[in-house]
């Protein structure tokens, strides 16, 4: 491969006039009158002219890389996670857990384990006095697998002033979620339990086992898997601390067998990249 500097030197050498030839033509020019060069067509070039400032602005979005903190060069990050699950029913749920993230190419791959606690409300207490139920999910464990793709990133000055300059990464996130309800496999054989663990929906035996854990007025949602999508903002503080607010939406079209419809999850993570 030819180094770019050498290639430039070769090109410059080829474009430079030969001194010998120049001497001969100079002598001839002195003897003959040269015709004037054609005028530049300014109108034809006008559509292609771009100000240097505009070119520089474009390049900022596509070519800039972290200056203060390059998360792509880190191996792994761990974080504590807290979420508020905003379901459109009368039950409340909060998630607490841990997650690990690994940069992979231009993506950020993340896995998490969390506990979701669910409780009722005055509305569910009153609903329990009636023959009606509302779909919700009892307290449970969750396994998450997320993939984040950076859309924009850059360096920002942080406030208050004693904080170092931060690296901001704004990403689109897609995630898969697996739910496990403790006690749901009670009484099942090893084979039945193994099959139930991978089934897309909770079986009737599992629902019956969860009857005691079910909150009053709750109809247990049978979906075992969920798919989410959303946006996240990673704020990195050199040398490795980060915080991550995130908004995830679970579209009903992607949650097989769920009766919850739309629901959101507002998550805040704080951790360290190693």
């Amino acid at each position: 491969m030819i180094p770019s500097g050498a290639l430039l030197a070769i090109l410059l050498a080829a474009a430079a006039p030969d001194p010998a030839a120049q001497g001969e033509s100079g002598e001839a020019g002195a003897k003959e009158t040269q015709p004037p060069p054609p005028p530049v067509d300014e109108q034809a070039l006008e559509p292609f002219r771009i100000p240097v400032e505009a070119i520089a602005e474009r390049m900022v979005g596509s070519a800039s890389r972290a200056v203060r903190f390059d998360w792509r060069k880190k191996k792994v990050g761990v974080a504590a996670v807290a979420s508020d699950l905003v379901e459109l029913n009368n039950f409340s749920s909060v998630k607490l857990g841990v997650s690990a993230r690994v940069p992979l190419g231009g993506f950020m791959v993340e896995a998490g384990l969390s506990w979701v606690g669910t409780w009722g409300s005055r509305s569910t207490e009153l609903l329990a006095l009636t023959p009606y139920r509302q779909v919700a999910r009892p307290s449970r464990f969750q396994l998450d697998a997320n993939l984040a793709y950076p859309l924009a990133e850059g360096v920002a000055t942080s406030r208050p002033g004693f904080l170092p300059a931060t690296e901001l990464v704004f990403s689109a996130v897609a995630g898969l979620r697996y739910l496990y309800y403790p006690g749901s496999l009670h009484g099942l054989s090893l084979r039945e339990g193994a099959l139930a663990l991978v089934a897309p929906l909770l079986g009737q035996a599992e629902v019956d086992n969860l009857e005691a854990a079910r909150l009053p007025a709750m109809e247990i949602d049978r979906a075992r898997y969920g798919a989410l999508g959303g946006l996240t903002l990673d704020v990195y503080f050199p040398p490795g601390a980060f915080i991550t607010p995130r908004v995830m939406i679970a579209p009903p079209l992607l949650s097989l067998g769920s009766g919850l419809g739309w629901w959101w999850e507002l998550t805040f993570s704080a951790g360290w990249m190693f």
Partner: protein
Amino acid sequence: MLGRSLGALLVAAAAACLSCDKVPLHDINASFTVADASWFEDEETLFVFYRAHAEQGLGDQSAIEISWVTDAQEVPWTRLQDLPAVHTHLPVDCTPRGRCGSWSVRVPLPPRQVRLRLRYHPEGSLALDAPLALNLVGSGPAHTNRSLLVYGVMDATNTRVQWRARHQFPALRNEEVQELGLRRFFSVAGAAHGDVGPPPEGDPYGYAFAPGCPATLTPLGWAAVETTDRAIFDSGVLPLTAATSPAVCAPATVTDAKGTFTAPAVAQKNPETHPAFPSLHSPIRENTAVGFLLHPCNRTISDPHLGMQEQRMLLDGAMEICLDGWRDPGFADGAAAIIRARADAVRAQGADMVLTLAVHHDVQGGALGQVLEQVLETALAPEAGKSSPRVSGAFVFDSFQYATARPAVSRLALWCPADLGDDLDLIPDTSSRQCPLLPDLPDLQLGPFHFGNLPILPTRKQYLSFIDRYSEAQAGRMKALVFLAPERTPLSQNVEVEPFGVATFFNNELVTAQPADAFSYCAGGDPLAFAVVFRIPPLPQPLPLQALPQVHSAFPQPQYPLGLIWDFPFLTRATYEVVIAGSATAFSLTVPFGVGIDTEAYYGNRLWEAPDIALSHTLLQCTRFCDAPTFDSSGVYNVTALFRPAYQDQCYRPSFPEPGDAGGGFPRDP
């Protein structure tokens, strides 16, 4: 591009927003599948049974409530469990989606306006009313007008008594009541054995048949037993002195809202049965083959065919009978005399015999066959009534297909070859009865290759055309011929049974019976049991064994001689090699080839294959307590299925209760 993306985003958002509603509320769809109340006047008790179900499950707080009105009181809606129970009611697991159970409360006067409902929550006011069915049972006999009766059953040895309680409700079955948690206490004390007589009409269990057990019974001195299960074995074992007693009677005490109620309960002994004739034994002997080669002595018809006939019948060194004068009037008698003389000579060796005859001739139309039938009838007829050693029958290998015309010959002789036609490619589906030996494999044509095989006993035309196409070496060969026939004793008697055949009573095999005995015939025993017959003096013809229970019930006889009915006197087992012959034809050149396979075929009566016919499961004889109720194979006590009338043509395979058996104190009693 940007416009398309924005459009798709808007469409997706609009579609998604169709699901943006709040999570809806669902009805749990609760309903009652059982809502039954029964009031018994003699017990002053109201029983309630319920079974409610909800698709989405019922909460822990949901409860069953009841209210009723009598002439003396009005009971408002009250949780069932808040009322004092007369009897024991166990909690019932109906899965989280159901609520099941039972309750019993004291109600001295007839209740009216009994209502039952499922209240979803004690703090709520919503409830589901049950479609309650109320039955009022007035005062009356204990065996019909009380909610529980007690009866006894015996174990397999008829020496141990199991006392059982049976729930009796107008709209619910015994086991369903048990499933809904009701348990009743009962105790039994003072058992005695003896004859209590038949149970009263309408009271098959004999519960409360009298104010008390008869004083004529013999006390057993057993300790009292009590339980809240549905059954319990009594503490003692019946002594030998009670062997002839048909029943055990004991006062049984049950509880109710008024206190206790005592009435006699009866345990009837099970029918005592045994196999009437465990096995019908008839020794089967291998018969000696006495061979004859019948052929024209003055001319040659076909040496290959004659050789094949000799080989097939294994007639090496057999006596020859010339057919040259077969049209002579005295030919038949002469030939029969030769056969009889030869048979008498072999008889001295002490073995039964079968005549094997190869008939080599070219007489078309069956005229010679008719003469030979006459020869065989003359030779075999005297042998039919003889005891062993005797001539059991004959095996004839003819040159043509032939169907016997004389019934006496058809019954005693196997006449081959079968009437299959001369073209092996057109073998009919059915063959003649005389010798249904078919080719072991069908012919097969694959391009230039042709595969076929010859019946082991072919006609001359079949044989000659076969060896012309393939070769003589591929025509197969007989390896062994074994003839099996029953041994006859000097007491053996034959009875003609038209049109089936002959029934032989070999050696005074008989079943003895008392007039009070009863029989049960079971068709699922030995498959050869169909051939067993019996006879009784008034009837000349034997009867199938299946009819013996009915015959004994209508015309009891002291004894029933047993015999076997048969349509052919011996069984032939032919062991031979059949060759799958092939030929490849190309350019007008045929190359034969073949693969030999050892084959075994039977013809005759499979009845003579084994010496014993097992009748232990086919014919049972009851000698005592034959009018008692019976257990079936699942252990259910069928109190109205008495052995004598119920099991004449059914298999009696009872399953008796045993102490410590599976199910414990909860016998199957629908």
